[in-house]
């Protein structure tokens, strides 16, 4: 059962998974290009960190994009059939959702592995200055978690009806509206800021995306 | 053989099927010991309910035209020649009755009908 589910989702998301894997493999390697040239100048360490950090921004972006696209691809066949076929299959709903989720998560293992391999290769090939260290495994683990969280969030949204999406949007819109009204009425209320704080900081759901993403760091 | 089954006719489908087979046997088209198509096959072919086919075969069996052997199918039985002749005569009667009924329906008189028959036969034989 899982095999056929995996196959169907693979057919839908193979392009995304392949491109994501290529990007995930290339990203760590490109990010240490500065270190690849054998240069023992003391200027190198700072410069390397800067390069690594500027490329590091792309890891959470890649993770979020992959999570989003694979989550959408996971539900596309069902959305196309307006879920009739899915509902007629003789499996309990929770099991069906679990199959879809598991298949999507397993497909995401490919880009995650690509990041791990790329990071290992990059930190192995780069001439890392003294005092700095490569963190390929930590980076890959973090990437994996970010991808999973993004996938789960968009999976849940995508599983919902247009009504669910509408409710989510209405909630966000409501918060904005209250904020605007508060501003106009000169009430000291920073809802958006608070929300951001809750969502983007530990243990918020999106905290995994924030912070520096360094393949090479002190 | 079953080309002209008409589900819309008031004659039930099983009767129509049984009739065709009866005529076939009477006309000598179906020789004794010839196997009839299986219920499954005939139902699929005619797109009728298998129960209808079974009912038709049952009727033929009670009439003594076929015998149903457990597990191997349905076979045409040996039918005495006079019985076959009687059957044919019966079919002819049915046809004529149908014709008369139709004629009555559309207002064709008996004479006109007779003339038409004579002409048709004359044309056919000449």
């Amino acid at each position, binding site marked *: 059962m899982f095999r056929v589910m995996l196959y169907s989702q693979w057919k839908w998301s193979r392009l995304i998974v392949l491109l994501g894997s290529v990007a995930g493999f290339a990203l760590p390697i490109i990010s240490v290009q500065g270190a690849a040239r054998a240069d023992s*100048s*003391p*200027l190198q*360490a*700072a410069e390397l*960190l800067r390069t690594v950090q500027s490329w590091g921004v792309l890891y959470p972006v890649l993770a979020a994009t992959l999570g989003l696209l694979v989550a959408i691809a996971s539900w596309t066949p069902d959305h196309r059939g*307006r*879920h*009739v076929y899915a*509902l007629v299959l003789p499996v309990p*709903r*929770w099991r069906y*959702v*679990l199959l879809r*989720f598991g298949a999507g998560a397993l497909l995401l293992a490919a880009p995650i592995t690509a990041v791990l391999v790329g990071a290992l290769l990059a930190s192995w090939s780069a001439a890392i*200055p*003294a*005092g*700095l*260290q490569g*963190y390929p495994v*930590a*980076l890959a*683990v*973090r990437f994996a*978690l*970010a991808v*999973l*969280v993004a*996938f*789960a*969030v968009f*999976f*849940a949204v*995508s*599983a*919902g*009806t247009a*009504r*669910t999406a509408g409710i989510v949007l209405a909630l966000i819109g409501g918060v904005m509206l209250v904020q605007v009204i508060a501003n106009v009425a000169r009430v000291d209320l920073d809802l958006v800021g608070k929300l951001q704080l809750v969502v983007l900081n*530990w*243990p918020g*759901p999106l*905290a*995994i995306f924030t*912070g*520096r*993403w*360094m393949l090479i*760091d*002190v | 053989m079953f080309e002209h089954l008409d589900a819309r006719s008031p004659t039930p489908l099983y009767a129509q099927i049984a009739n065709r087979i009866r005529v076939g046997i009477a006309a000598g088209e179906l020789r004794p010991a010839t196997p009839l198509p299986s219920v499954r096959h005939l139902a699929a072919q005619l797109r009728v309910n298998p129960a209808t086919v079974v009912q038709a075969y049952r009727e033929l069996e009670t009439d003594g035209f076929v015998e149903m052997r457990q597990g191997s199918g349905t076979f045409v039985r040996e039918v005495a020649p006079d019985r076959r002749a009687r059957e044919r005569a019966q079919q002819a009667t049915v046809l004529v009755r149908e014709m008369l009924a139709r004629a009555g329906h559309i207002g064709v008189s008996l004479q006109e009908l007779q003339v038409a028959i004579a002409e048709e036969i004359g044309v056919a034989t000449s």
Partner: protein
Amino acid sequence: MCRKRWVLLPLGLACARGLIGQELPRLQARADSLAREWRHAAAVADAIDSLERARVFVGHDTIRVGALTIVTNASPLPLREAAVRAWPLIDSVYGDDARQLEERPYAIVPVDPDTTVERPPRHNGTEIPWDQDVASLTLLLLSTVPVAPADTALQRWLGGEVRPLIHADVERAGVYVRLVTAPFEASRRCLIGDISACRDALDLFGRGDPVARWYRSARERRSVVLNTFTGYFDRGTHLATLQACANGSDSACTQLLRSLPPGGLPRPLTHDARTTLVDVALHLGGRDAYHRLAASVGLPIADRLAAAGGIAIDSLLSRWRAEILASRPTPVSLPPWGLWIALGWTILFAVFGLRSSRWRVN
């Protein structure tokens, strides 16, 4: 008294300036002692002033925690809690010298942060809005400890007064990053384990040319000139030299760097590196370490630190380096429980997917 001390200082400075070149260290020492006297006098005057002022208010208060003394008015400020937190740190840095705080109290004037009423100008004491919390108050107490100021040589080397480190580990982590990333050979070699390089980077060599000691390669010198001082040299007589330096002449770069006024040349390691070094020395030296450091005016800084720590300067630097390396910051900002939280969110959202209203056709 006020008048007198204003006269004293310019006089001393004028003398010192006039005699420069003859006996610089001796004069500097004199200036130091004069300045010290002046500051001491000023502090005593301030304390007396503040006590006098405080007496005017009803319900004034003197908080004592250890030797730490705070003169203040009744207010909602959690000063006692802050003092309780600050005192162990202060005691651990100044040791026996912290006793002098009994005579040198903090004068703190709590003010209403929201009031718009004009207040009379204050000559002394620190005005603090009374909505501050304990943490920021502690910070304030630690950064303004009213011990007698150090001599100028120490201040100039350190870049400020000797103060307790509030978050020593964070500071050391910062120094580690600086050691690793500073674009200077000296700091890099120090990181790798060359103690003499540490000495250079921390500005602890006796005599010598700082330009050559701090910037060992032509490339470093050039990059310092071009990155930091282009705007400064980009005029007048230096312009041609600057261009020569930009075109690759090392002697031009060196010449430019040497022409900077004393103290103008940036040191490879920043203030926090030296602060952590002093911290190490003081903790090694025991309760009278600070006293030894303050008393050894006139000696080279390296010797003073060695004296304070009671250990040879190279050993002190090794200890310092070891502590810095031990404080290497955690690199990937994923807390240890982050893994479980992320997985928890994943499961939670997956369950949301399960509970979707999609499970009926409509």
